Structures are given as C-alpha cells and as structure tokens.
C-alpha cells in the first residue's frame, strides 16, 4: 500500500540544516498494524506528517497505492488525504465550538458529502463508538477518553485506508487509554491499516511490527 524509497527531509535551524529524515525506506502493506517508535526528536513525527501528506519530503519517493504523491499538486494531495488517511492526535484537536456529532461530521462536510448521507453515517458511527448520548456535547463537556473516541470517529468517518495515530493515549489515564487502544485495534482487525507513533514501549509492543527511529534513520525492524 505504501512504499517509501530513500526519503530525505531537512529543516533549516539557524544556519544549520537538521536532517529530520535520512534515507528512510519503508514498505507498509494494507491492513498492517505498525508502531513507529523512538525518542522525541528522532524524526517520527516528521515521518508521520509525510505519511499523512501534511508535509513533503525534500528527496526520495513516496508511493501511495502506486501513486507517486510528490508529483501531485496540493489540491490532489488534499483529496487523497480526505479519501485515504485518518489522523488521531495526542491532544485530540477537536474544534471546541462544535458538538461531538459536528466534529465527526466535519471531514464529510469538507469533502462535500450530501447531508442526508452524512446523517445516516453519523447515526451509525455514534452508535458504534458508544457516543450517542454525548452527541450534542461540546468537547469541553467530555472526558479525555470520550474526546479521543470522538477524534477516532472523525478520523474514520470517511472510511480511510490508513489511520495515523500520534501518541493516541498520551493524554489519557490507563483505563481510558486501554479502551482507546482496543478501539484502534478493533478497527485494524476490520481491515484498516494502523500506524501508531509512540515512545511508549508497552503500547508499541502490542503492534505486530515495530520500527525504531533514531536521528532520522530507521534503526531496526525486529519483526520486519
């Protein structure tokens, strides 16, 4: 599904160029459960941004379902992102003024899905996520676990092929963290490709495949 070949990404910091990604090559198959691990500053967030089409590599190739995304314009990349990729963030990034239901609806609104289809889809999804009763609440009225469930609902509402989760349990207590992990893993069991970015060893160990990053390089792939 995804093929990275010799990706490079440098950032200008003062007069120096910091190499955030250095010759990264990686293949991710459809339906995989992958953890990208490493200390902060290792380049894993940069890799995730590039995987999620939020950033572009300075050099190298990124093939998504056989399409070289570096050759696409910004509008096309946005469309791919909308269709194929869902994001889950450590700090949820919900829109505070919107209700849980409206937050989940947002990607469909942006993509121009007709309203009738949206409502049908939302009803099903809120039911599945066990959020039906909280649908009209704003993020500030929800617990951390509920917020992350809303964020996951938002990430999967467009039925993406891949879910990119950046420290999804980082702000949660162990109980709600475990619930969120279970939810993500059940989505993976249903066929979605799950890429987990974390420095939490215990969480990373649950993935079927681990990648370690250090100084912008992939260090080891024990199960690779």
């Amino acid at each position, binding site marked *: 599904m995804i093929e990275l070949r010799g990706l490079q990404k440098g950032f200008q910091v003062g007069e120096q160029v910091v190499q955030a990604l250095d010759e990264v090559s990686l293949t991710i198959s459809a339906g995989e459960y992958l953890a990208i691990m490493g200390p*902060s500053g290792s380049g894993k*967030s940069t890799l995730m*941004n590039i995987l*999620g089409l*939020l*950033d572009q590599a300075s050099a190298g190739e990124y093939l998504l379902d056989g399409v070289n995304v570096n050759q696409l314009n*910004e*509008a096309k990349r*946005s*469309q791919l*992102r*909308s*269709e194929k990729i869902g*994001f889950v*963030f*450590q*700090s*949820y*990034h*919900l*829109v*505070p*003024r*919107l209700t849980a239901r*409206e937050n989940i609806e*947002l*990607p*469909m*609104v*942006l*993509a*121009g*899905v*007709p*309203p009738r*289809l949206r409502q049908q*889809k939302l009803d*099903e*999804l809120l039911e*599945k996520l066990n959020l039906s009763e909280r649908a009209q609440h704003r*993020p*500030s009225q929800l617990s951390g676990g509920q*917020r992350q469930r809303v964020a996951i609902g*938002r990430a*999967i509402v*467009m*039925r993406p092929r891949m879910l990119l989760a*950046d*420290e999804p349990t980082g*702000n949660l207590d162990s109980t709600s963290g475990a619930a969120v992990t279970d939810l993500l893993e*059940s*989505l993976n069991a*249903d066929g979605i490709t799950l890429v987990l970015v974390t420095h939490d060893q215990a969480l990373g160990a649950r993935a079927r495949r681990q990648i370690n990053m250090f100084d912008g390089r992939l260090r080891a792939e024990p199960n690779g």
Partner: protein
Amino acid sequence: MGDLERSLTASFMMAWADTFIFVSQVLMRQRFRTVVLWVAIAIGVIAVNLLTALGEGAKSYVLSEFNVLGRHTLITLPGKKETRGGMPPITGESPRALTLKDAQAVSRLSGVKTVAPLVLGNIEVSYAGKIRESLVMGSSRSFFALRHLVLARGQLLPERGRFKGEAVAVIGSRLRDELFAGKPALGEWLRLGDSRFRVIGVLKTSGTRFGFDMDEVVIIPVVSAQSLFNVDGLFRLFAEVRHFSQLDTVKQQMVELLKQRHEGEEDVTVISQDAMLSSLQKILDTLTYAVSGIAAVSMLVAGILIMNMMIITVSQRRKEIGLLKALGASSALVRRLFLAEAGLIAALAALSGWMLSHLVLLLANNYFSDIQFHSPWWAQAASIALALGLSLLFAWLPAQRASSLAPVQALQGKTAQAQR
C-alpha cells in the same frame, strides 16, 4: 464495523450551503470574537460617514448662508469699491446717497423684473408697556419674495403705493411672542420710537439669514423707515433680473444709469451673488479639501483598526487551519472558509454601521435646524468598500500564510492544546 464499509458519495468540494453553515457557526458560537470584530468594522464605517458629514455640513452651511438671495439678484451698495480697499462703507454715507428715485429708475430698466430697497435701523419697539430694542427694515412688498420670507399669518406690505409711507408693519415670530405673549397681534398698534404702526403680518420662523435674525425684525414700508430714521439714502438696493442670462447686461445698465443720475460719477457698487460666491471660492475650496482630508484620515484609522482585528483573529486560528487541512481541506478551501467568514461579518457590520450613522445624522439634523449633515455618497460608498476590502484582504493574508505553513507545526501535537 462492517456497516461502515458502505462507500460515501463525495464530490471533494464543500457545498456552499455547508460553507454558510460552517461560517455562521463560527460567528454565532464565538460571540465575543464576533462582537469585537463587528464593533471594529462598524466603528470604521461610522467614523468615515459621521466625520465627512460633519465637514460637508459645515461646507453647505457656509454656502447656504450666501445662497439666500438667489442667482437672479443684483445688489447695489452706495459707494465705490476701491481696487485695494476692503468692503465699501456700509453706513450709506457716501458723497451721493443711493435714493428711492434711483430705485424707481432702476425698476424701469427692461431687464429688471422687480426691485426692493432696503433701509436699516435700530429702534425701541413697545407694546402695552413692553419695550424691546429691535432691528427695523424698511422695504417693499417684493422684498419678501427676494429674501424668501414667508408669512405665518396676516398679509405682506401693501403693493399699492410701493414707495409711499404707510404706518403698517410685518414682525418676526419671536418678537410677536415676546411682545404679545400669545394674544393676537394682527391689527394691534405697535409703537416704533415716536410713531405708531399697525401689525398686518407675522413672519414664519426662519432663523438667521445673511447675518440678520429675521425672527426679531420689524419690516415697514421703506418711506416710513426713511422718515422714522430721518435718512434719504438706501442701505441696499436689491434688483431681480428677468433672466439669468441678462445678469451681466443688466448690471452694466444699472451702473451706467446710476452713474448718469449721479452726475457722471460712478459711486455705487453692483454685485451679484455669483461674484460674492466666487470671492468665497477660496474658502469653499479649503473646506472641500478639509472634508476630503477628514475622510482620508478617518478611513486610514478605520482601515488600520479593521486590519489589526482581522489579522489577530485569523492568526489565533492557525491551529484550526492546520486541523482543517489534516481533515482533507485543500488550501483553496481553507481560504474560502476564511474569506467567507470575513466577508459575511464585514458585510453585516458595515451595513449596520452604515445604518447607525444614518440614524445619528437623522437625529442630528432634527436637533440642529440651521445646519444639515449629509455624508457625501462617495464617502459612504468608500467606507463600505474599505471595510469589505480590508476585511477580506487581511483575513486572506494570514489565512494564506497559515494554510501553506501551519499543518505540520500546528499538528506536531507536542504542545498540548487546551480544549477550553
């Protein structure tokens, strides 16, 4: 999650109806921000409209003060205006007075429609023990039309015997109130100095005209005034020409005629309103520049206010811009959302500011009857265009910058974003 596998029909272009709902939600649910922005834009529009109305009001006030006579009127003053001198002596004490006979001669000129002589004086006016010092104008019936004086009741000075003295008077409205205190004034006998005059008319309130408070005057036939003040000469002679095109010809004829009648000496000055206005042109030009300057400065201030508010409020939402992009919005869509938002609030705020400034002007115009405030149409149009243009521009600039830079930074997720 099997049910969710059903595919979605997506056009990958947000519908306009959804854009409107999205933008309305931003404006409705972030009320404080909306109100602050609204006030900033409305104040900008109001400032431009009110300040230019003030300048324009001052300008038209000056114009109207000199417009009372009308363009068809020639004014003759006794005495020759010297090349380097100021105004001719206003006392009428030139070597040869301008007389009633001169007025009769002028009235016989073919191009002259009507003439009105004017003799001025101050005298004690009394009725039933009440005494006031008042301005007395001696003139004729045609004077009322020339000076746009309208009667509230009674009649004008008699037409018959235009240049004969009759003991009748038309009085100003305030003088009537003060002397008669609500009792009917018509037919009553006023005492002017040692003579008695019967009140035959009362003027409508008209305020100050050309330096005279017309609400406190007593107007009597010119001959009566001449004997009352014991003068031969006229203070002014007003002549109305039949056609505006003849104004200059008639002016020449009048000067010639009076020169002839005064033994070949040109000792009068004949001026037209246009000539007076052209001597005022410099003042009017200055006032026009002042109005434009006021408009420019108020627009600059309003523009900077709107610019700052827009930049701040849009910049505060860089994270939201990053998020929208992560959720599949293209840069173009992000720009559209922010432009629609800025456009909607700017339009509503500019419209309400425009209406509010008109309300204020309406109240001001009711309150001050002497001076009328009207914002010129170009200032109104410019204020609204400025509010809309600047709002869109300074929403677009930060939104543009944020939509091209922000996603990566905003979504690093390292700094925990407060969810309120």
